[in-house]
């Protein structure tokens, strides 16, 4: 298998499948479009499996590397490769795409081909982001992935979708344009290389590092999103169709966090140490303040959106305490959040498809009419609150443990999320699911069908599997994370 360009396949199989689906055209061919999309998504997932089975856990080096000249005029290369940090996300992304195609199966009835094609193309682009080792290639995928999500929110979204789509696009573009200038600066400073790995080794003065770090920070903070540039996310989530919310929460948010590990920490290590306090402060604000904001939401999707921001605060906190446990915990948290938030948004989608409301007040006593659904929803609510034995616990626990070593008060502040997170998630769960049947809409609810059951099972395997046996996930990260930390500890100032 060594000669197979696996990463190229992971990128281009979904994109080509998307174009084929697009060619099926009008909604008369909707069943065909759905079948083809599922086929494409499953094929996209299958080609990523060898990335895990063939992965060498003992080396921090890039694996499955592909290097071809792309634009020799600017020394831009089609340079792909994954290490223990990025590989899990390629698989997670391909997995989420399958669930998204399934999630839209009966729900999306207009422009089915375009809807599914959008997700497939986006899946390929996201895989490109996670596996790009060339700055321009990374940037190109990073920005191109805005287009499908913009269209998905705008075409299939809720009443306020136009505002949400514009806000999403312009916010993220704002961040990435400064990032582009940073890339061009690095190109110049490195004497004409766009290779991210070259940049990792390149000495840089502290002053330049600080500016670069800030440019990276703006780009990635918008994407994560960190407080105070998070305001686009609740809007985007509320208006996006269920599939859009799943991808947004499970994958798109991870891009920013991944950017910190690929760019900020290794390229500007001294500035990272210098400005770690800033990032930690922003992370704690996200964890605590946004947690309380989530508590008062009336809209379930908004609530989960704010809870996502709080959870991502954990991720950035874990990165900037510079310990193996912290970074691995953050990575586990990212993957876990992919499963759990995806499942939470799917749960809300299931209810919305039936009762056409996301307001907590419109529900009550759902367990009486949808017992199977309530059981699954319970599991994911618990995982979202960070209950032990679910994946949500592992990451948060590791990050808190690592921050205790770093500074007790930071850990103390972060640990409050255990309470607040449980409060907003379980309180919402209680109001929606328990109690007497609230109104005739709830009384008319029908329990989940086989398709929805399948999706829930897929998410549950992820969330429980990671919670009970996280070793396969952490194992692949070890050497890459250690190498990264080793690298970050070295000063680049000469």
């Amino acid at each position, binding site marked *: 298998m060594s000669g197979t360009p696996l990463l190229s396949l992971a990128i281009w199989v979904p994109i080509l499948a998307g174009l084929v689906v697009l060619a099926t055209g009008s909604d008369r061919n909707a069943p065909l479009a759905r079948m083809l999309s599922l086929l494409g998504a499953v094929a996209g997932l299958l080609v990523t499996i060898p990335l895990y089975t063939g992965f060498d856990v003992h080396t921090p080096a890039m694996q499955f590397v592909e290097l071809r000249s792309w634009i020799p005029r600017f020394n831009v290369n089609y340079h792909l490769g994954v290490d223990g940090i990025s590989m899990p996300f390629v698989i997670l992304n391909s997995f989420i795409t399958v669930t998204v195609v399934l999630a839209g199966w009966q729900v999306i009835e207009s422009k089915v081909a375009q809807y599914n094609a959008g997700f497939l193309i986006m899946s390929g682009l996201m895989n490109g982001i996670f596996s790009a080792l060339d700055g321009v290639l990374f940037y190109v995928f990073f920005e191109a992935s805005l287009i499908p999500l913009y269209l998905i929110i705008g075409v299939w979204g809720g009443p306020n979708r*136009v505002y949400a*789509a514009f806000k999403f696009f312009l916010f993220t573009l704002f961040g990435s344009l400064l990032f582009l200038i940073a890339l061009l600066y690095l190109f110049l400073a490195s004497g004409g290389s766009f290779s991210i790995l070259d940049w990792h080794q390149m000495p840089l003065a502290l002053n330049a590092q600080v500016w670069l770090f800030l440019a990276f920070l703006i780009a990635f903070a918008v994407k994560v999103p960190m407080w105070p540039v998070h305001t686009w996310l609740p809007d985007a989530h509320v208006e996006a169709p269920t599939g859009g919310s799943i991808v947004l929460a499970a994958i798109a948010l991870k891009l920013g966090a991944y950017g910190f590990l690929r760019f900020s920490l290794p390229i500007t290590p001294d500035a990272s140490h210098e400005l770690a306090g800033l990032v930690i402060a922003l992370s704690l604000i996200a964890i605590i303040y946004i947690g309380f904001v989530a508590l008062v939401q009336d809209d379930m999707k908004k609530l989960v959106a704010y809870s996502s921001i709080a959870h991502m605060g954990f991720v950035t906190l874990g990165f900037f305490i510079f310990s193996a446990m912290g970074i691995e915990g953050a990575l586990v948290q990212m993957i876990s959040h992919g499963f759990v938030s995806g499942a939470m948004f799917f749960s809300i989608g299931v209810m919305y498809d039936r009762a056409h409301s996301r307001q907590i007040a419109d529900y009550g006593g759902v367990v009486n009419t949808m017992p199977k659904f309530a059981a699954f929803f319970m599991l994911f609510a618990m995982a979202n609150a960070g209950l032990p034995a679910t994946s949500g616990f592992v990451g948060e626990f590791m990050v808190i443990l690592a921050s205790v070593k770093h500074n007790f008060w930071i850990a103390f502040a972060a640990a409050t999320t255990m309470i607040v997170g449980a409060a907003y998630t379980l309180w919402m769960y209680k109001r929606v699911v328990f109690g007497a049947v609230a109104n005739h809409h709830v009384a008319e609810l029908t329990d989940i069908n086989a398709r929805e059951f399948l999706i829930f099972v897929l998410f549950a395997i992820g969330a429980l599997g990671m919670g009970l046996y996280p070793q396969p996930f952490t194992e692949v990260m070890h050497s890459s994370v250690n190498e990264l930390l080793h690298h970050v500890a070295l000063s680049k100032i000469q």
Partner: protein
Amino acid sequence: MTLAEMQFLTPDLRPASAEIFILLMACVILILDLFVRDRKRTLTFVLTQLSLVGTAVVTFAVSTGEITYTFSNMFVGDLMGDLLKLLLYLTVIVVLFYSRGYILEREQMLRGEYYALALFATLGMMVMISANHLVTVYAGLELLSLSLYAMVAMNRDSVPATEAAMKYFVLGALASGVLLYGMSMIYGATGTLEITAIAERLYLGQADKGVLVFGLVFVVSGIAFKLGVVPFHMWIPDVYHGAPTAVTLFIATAPKLAAFAMMVRLLINGLIVLAKDWQDMLILLAVLSMAVGNIAAIAQTNLKRMLAYSAISHMGFMLLGVVTGVVGGDARFALNAYSSAMFYVITYVLTSAGAFGMILLLARGGLESDELDDFKGLNRRNPWLAGLMMMMMFSMAGIPFFVGFFAKFSVLQAVVAAGQLWLAIVAVAFSLIGCFYYLRVVKLMYFDPPATTSPVEAPLDMKLLLSANGLAIALLGVFPQALMSLCAFSLLRSL
């Protein structure tokens, strides 16, 4: 001087044979058209297109790749000129194809003169591209401008078109005067009109700097008018908006190539010694253009007018590549910077042709379709066309994988290489603002319900050509290397 003493040397006609060919063909078509009885003027149309193809063949055949001067050094043939000319013919061919349906529905434009004027305008642009003498530049420019004035006014019962023609003529004449005045100053300072000789004398320091810079201001103003950058942009929105869309398409595409060539000839070939002075002026113009163009475009409700302001901002962005060639007297980055500007202008012309082509395609039954609202719900009426238009809009906004991204990328790269980070930040800030109105077009096509459900009817050949245009934007966005190095190579061999 006696007759025997007068030596008459036949100039070498080879470098100018394409110009001679197209001139002959334009005259032939003008005469032949008198005998065409067919209301549709198919013969004239076909002949015009064949002449352009023939001119391309001639240009290709006589191109040596060397710099050759002729007509007592008034005319130069070089690789940059040949490349721009070939792209020019291609643009004009595409433009005439796009315009065909539009013209057929308008009695007054359905004349042989339309095609003859298009050919004369093309000739004017070719002369501008190959000029090595201030008078040659001026002659080419006037030939282009006069043809365009007439083309704008051709639909003579249309009030907006007549008004646009009038404005264009008055302002254009003023700009020509300004340019001529600047040229006369330069002549006064250097004692020659020959561009290469001007460069030589400036290099040797045989010129009065004060008069020169005074003249330079006027030359830059004249160029800025032709490019349509702030504060010489006033004519652009009115002319783009008022002119018949077919003519707008013409004005918005091919002349940009010629204006770029004129700028290269005058400023880079001729006045490179004064680079510091004209760069400072152009930086100001570039920043103003990006600001005014992008902000004013947001307020437009008419697509032609919006694209006019977008053109202003794009030309401003392109200028960033021109102003970063010489850094503190060091011309190390010149080739990189100028070729990025050339790449920018070529890809802009490609995208602009597609966008105006789309307006033409939607205009049916003698009606215009140039309001933004006419694009509402296009995705439901025709997903393919909506997809093409979306690609063009994203390309103009500079989003990958479309060629507009690499155009912006290469120019920004030149700006950063010149050490002007603040200029790069200003440029991306205004692109972000600009992104909004391109997104709005996508929003109208995709998010809004259509006002009419009638399917889009258009001739197949036009749909095919427009598809090719759109796919070229995507394809060049994935593989920009070939065109980029072509620009760099042709400039390397010409400067």
